[in-house]
């Protein structure tokens, strides 16, 4: 807690407070405001962006900020590691990671607010006051989550963003599907958060602290415990760290839509596309991955947990990419690609590639927000038609949308030199390096690599179907026009998606031996950082060995070439199949696999079965138990009490001789008991 609240960091709380104020203003006065409350949101997010940039600059200038704002409760309990007392606080931690994330979140939030003017206001949606209020609340929660300095505070805002997500998915609550999707998203993520909460409690009970940073953090405490060989709750320290880490990971998997909790995200596309861009692509879904990065020091202590993260990430990347291949709805494709891309980030973090993971997180935020907003623009163009088979030939009619969308697609597919290439390549390189020593990681790497091909394929399938060929419907013949509010965010994000990769040109740096891996320096605390929360510190902690094929440079080039080649192969396949004037579905080529893919590997089915076939009967049984046994006991107690009361009442007969007899009888009873105990009759 070196930094005090002076200087630029004194303004840190404002980052979150601005959107909160906007939320309140919109909620109270939204009806009377011009643009139905969009303006407060835009101003607030712009303000947040400015302050975030100031923070970013301050960190770049060698600063860092860690302070406690408010202690809301404290306890005196002694933890497992003999720490006396525990404090639960709200605090702010601004280090390179959170400063970067603050800029990303507030930037995307600002752009989405602006885009909403075109997407929501111009389209004459109703309920805009609610929409902007909820966006404001979301932005507030997300920003507060990002700068949270302890796990409990993070959890609270994690839940709050979940709530906002629920509200916004169900924005069109009069339809049948939106409320259902909202509930699904809420329940699935809540299921993961349940483990998260247990994890928070376990960590608090174990280490007596929930802080992320500093000497008092649970990360440091866990490290000490492992070094000392302490036994925690009957496990040795490392196993216990793994267990608690995996519990927290439950929340991460739910929020970041990783297998098997990914099923809610495609359904969440029922929300407005702007919401999908902001929440279900760029920011909230990133919260899970961000949390792993935030407490990376903790996961770094447990190779098992890391391996699980990596494997789940790699698997999800491939798994989701295959499903995206057969989707017809443009937003569905993007949804599955989002799941897949977060799989890459998890893979990157899981193999100890902290920089790679965060790098991809950043790039993905830009290009996926771009793609979603682009999809939003397409939807406007198409008069709210989302089926790609109804589109086609939009390339010439909406050039801005097309070129920005293309930039995003190239980034997503991982084509050099767009941003996605650099970060995905780095993830895969890190995975390969570790994988050469660890078979499990190698498998994860292989899956990630294979997913590159599918990514390239579905991305360009989407591009070709949407923009190329001949128009396949009346709407596509005569698209609706889009305004500046749509184009400006697209252009801004398009630029970022193109150039953001230059923040960390690791392969180039390796080849030219130039110091241009800025993001690595940034995260390594070259400019300013909280001690212990740096890439180097993490790297030393991670127990993985790294191998090379030939030399490091060879390995890197091999990895980069492989992934680029696969991506191009995918794109080329898509080109062959779909970049024709009259594309056909080509579904028969997939044979039986088509049905499986189209049904999303029956993930929903088994989860519905879990809910209906397993949980529901269990709940019924529990209900029956409650109705009969518990209620029976409760009712029985009252019946017995009342019956007893009735009996007791009858002792009072009203006849005074009975009283005298009972009185004397009672007295003699007491006398006998006491006399027996006291031995008076001996």
């Amino acid at each position, binding site marked *: 807690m070196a930094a005090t609240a002076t200087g630029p960091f004194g303004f840190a709380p404002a980052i979150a407070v601005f959107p909160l104020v906007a939320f309140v203003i919109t909620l109270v006065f939204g009806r009377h405001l011009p643009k139905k409350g969009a303006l407060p949101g835009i101003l607030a997010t712009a303000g947040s962006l400015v302050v975030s940039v100031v923070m970013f600059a301050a960190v770049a200038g060698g600063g860092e900020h860690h302070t406690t704002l408010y202690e809301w409760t404290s306890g005196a309990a002694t933890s497992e590691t003999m720490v006396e007392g525990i404090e639960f606080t709200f605090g702010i931690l601004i280090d390179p990671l959170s400063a970067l994330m603050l800029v990303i979140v507030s930037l995307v939030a600002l752009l989405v607010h602006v885009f909403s003017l075109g997407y929501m206001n111009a389209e004459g949606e109703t309920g805009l006051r609610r929409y902007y209020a909820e966006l404001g609340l979301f932005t507030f929660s997300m920003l507060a989550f990002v700068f949270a300095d302890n796990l409990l505070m993070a959890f609270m805002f994690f839940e709050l963003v979940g709530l906002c997500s629920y509200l916004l998915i169900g924005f069109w609550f009069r339809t049948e599907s939106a409320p259902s999707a909202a509930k699904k998203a809420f329940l699935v993520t809540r299921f993961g958060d349940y483990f998260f909460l247990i994890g928070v409690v376990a960590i608090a009970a174990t280490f007596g602290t929930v802080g992320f940073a500093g000497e008092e953090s649970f990360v440091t405490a866990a490290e000490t415990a492992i070094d000392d060989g302490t036994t925690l709750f009957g496990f040795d320290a490392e196993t216990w760290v793994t267990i608690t880490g995996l519990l927290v990971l439950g929340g991460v998997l739910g929020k970041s839509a990783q297998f098997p909790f990914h099923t809610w995200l495609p359904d969440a596309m029922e929300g407005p596309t702007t919401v999908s861009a902001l929440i279900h692509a760029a920011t909230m879904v990133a919260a899970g991955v961000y949390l792993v990065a935030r407490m990376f020091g903790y996961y770094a202590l447990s190779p098992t947990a890391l391996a699980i993260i990596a494997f789940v990430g790699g698997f999800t990347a491939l798994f989701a990419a295959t499903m995206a291949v057969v989707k017809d709805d443009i937003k569905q494709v993007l949804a599955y690609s989002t799941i897949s891309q977060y799989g890459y980030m998890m893979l990157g973090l899981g193999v100890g590639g902290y920089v790679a993971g965060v790098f991809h997180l950043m790039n993905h935020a830009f290009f996926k927000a771009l793609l979603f907003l682009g999809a939003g623009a397409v939807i406007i163009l198409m008069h709210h038609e989302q089926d790609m088979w109804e589109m086609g030939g939009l390339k010439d009619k909406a050039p801005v949308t097309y070129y920005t969308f293309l930039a995003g697609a190239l980034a997503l597919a991982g084509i050099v030199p767009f941003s996605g290439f650099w970060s995905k390549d780095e993830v895969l390189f890190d995975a390969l390096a570790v994988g050469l020593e660890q078979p499990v990681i190698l498998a994860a790497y292989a899956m990630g690599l294979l997913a590159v091909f599918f990514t390239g394929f579905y991305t360009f399938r989407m591009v070709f179907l949407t923009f190329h060929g001949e128009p396949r419907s009346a709407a596509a013949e005569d698209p609706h026009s889009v305004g500046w509010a749509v184009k400006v965010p697209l252009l801004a994000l398009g630029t970022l998606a193109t150039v953001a990769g230059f923040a960390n040109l690791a392969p180039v740096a390796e080849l030219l031996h130039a110091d241009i891996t800025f993001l690595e320096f940034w995260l390594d605390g070259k400019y300013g950082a909280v001690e212990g929360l740096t890439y180097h510190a993490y790297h030393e902690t991670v127990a993985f060995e790294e191998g090379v094929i030939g030399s490091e440079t060879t390995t890197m080039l091999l990895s980069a070439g492989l992934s680029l080649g696969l991506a191009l192969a995918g794109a080329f396949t898509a080109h062959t199949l779909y970049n024709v004037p009259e594309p056909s579905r080509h579904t028969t080529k997939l044979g039986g696999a088509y049905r499986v893919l189209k049904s999303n590997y029956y993930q929903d089915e088994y989860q519905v079965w879990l809910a209906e076939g397993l949980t529901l009967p269990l709940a019924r049984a529990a209900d029956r138990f409650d109705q009969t046994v518990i209620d029976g006991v409760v009712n029985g107690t009252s019946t017995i009490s009342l019956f007893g009361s009735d009996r007791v009442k009858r*002792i009072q007969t009203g006849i*005074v001789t009975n009283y005298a007899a009972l009185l004397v009888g009672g007295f003699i009873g007491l006398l006998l008991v006491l006399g027996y105990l006291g*031995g008076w009759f001996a």
Partner: protein
Amino acid sequence: MAVLELPDWMALAPALILAGTALVLFLIDSIEPHSTNRTLLSGTAVAGSLSSLAVAVWFTVAGVGATGIENYGVIDIMNGQFVVDQLALYFMIIIAVVTALVTVASYDYLQDHTYQAEYYSLVVLAATGMSMMAASNSLVTIFIALELTSLPSYALVAILKDNRGSVEAGLKYFLIGALSSAIFVYGVSLVYGATGSLQLTRIATVLESGDGAVGEMGGLLGLGILMLIGGVAFKTASVPFHFWAPEAYEGAPAPISAFLSSASKAAGFVLAFRVFTTAFPLEATTGIIGVDWTLVFAILAIVTMTLGNFAAATQENVKRMLAYSSIGHAGYVLIGLAALSADGGDLVMGAAMMHLLVYGFMNTGAFLFVGLAEYWGVGRTFEDYNGLAERAPFACGAMAVFMFSLAGVPPFSGFWSKYLLYTELINAAADNTVLLVLAAALVINSALSLYYYSRLVKALWIEEPLLDRDRLAQPTGLYAAVIAAAVMTVVLLPAFGPVADAALEAAAAVVA
């Protein structure tokens, strides 16, 4: 303060003032027999009880009876026949407060009543006895005070001579009372026989030194102690000596029920606290009689609170419900004696005393509300009380306060005293199974009690009235007493610090 210059016997002033008030009332009645000048009679009684209260409070504040200050210590009167210490003054305050409330309320209740002067003088005489009991330090004075309390009480219960219920209740009360007094006085004689002394401190000295043949008379002494407990149990309406209470409370005029269930009960408890902490030091007594006498109180407490609450649960008659609830509360307070064997027992006793003070307000208030209902003539059962809140929101609000406070619902004082009793009990019960059972019984019974207390509140506030009522009169005296009791029930909470300190100090002083 001028206390220093006063002769020692003036320390009994709170009781003496009451005695004087009773005589003045007799004189007034002698001068003008069958006077119906209610203002004069009631005013005299109220003035007497208030001055008694004022003097007792003044003494407490001035530090009479407080230990550790020069010249202010415990005052012995007539060679230790009476003692004025914090405990005595604390209970004198409770008694004076209840007496004041009851006499104020009686002003309206006794409208058109034949025996005005007799009523007030008997009330004040009984209060004198109770006040004396608080200061009595010898089995003889205790017995005299006990009888001085009991005899007017019998007459007061039966004072509605044309009401069969009242007369029947009075006779039953008298018969059970006579039996209990006999048992008590027999106990006194046995204790005297075993120890050769009637003065409490001397009894303790004998027991501790083991002088004479006391060591061989364990059974005799034990029986004597048990009989003394019987006498106490009668006064406090504890099982199995409780039989008079439901009948007497139901039959008696409501202010008298309030008086008996609050003040008389408090007097019974001060008697118990005094006798058992002073005369029978635990270790010495246990060594002689072979059994820990707190066990008796533990048994009595459990049985009393359980029986009281269970019997109250299904009563249809409000006054009878309150009567049983009052038995239940006696059970709670008995815990204070049952816990004396444990470490921290003095704190439990202090908490029990606090509960008595709070109880003095809330229970008196509740009975006075019943008096108000009798004054209105609305009937006696829960159903008759349905929807009264529409007509008399203030009084019914006060009644709700009493009920919730009796049930121990926060934030009312009854909650705090019961909570304190419970926490202190748990603290003391560290390794004492009996006390843990007591704590469990306390919790279970409190939960049950909420049922029937809230039933009454529900009747008052939620149920629809059975028949349309005209506007209800608002008798000044009754209203004033009920509202005053309600206000005290609420504001005793902020004042809880000083009250708690006073009770804890008093308890610690006698236990030590």
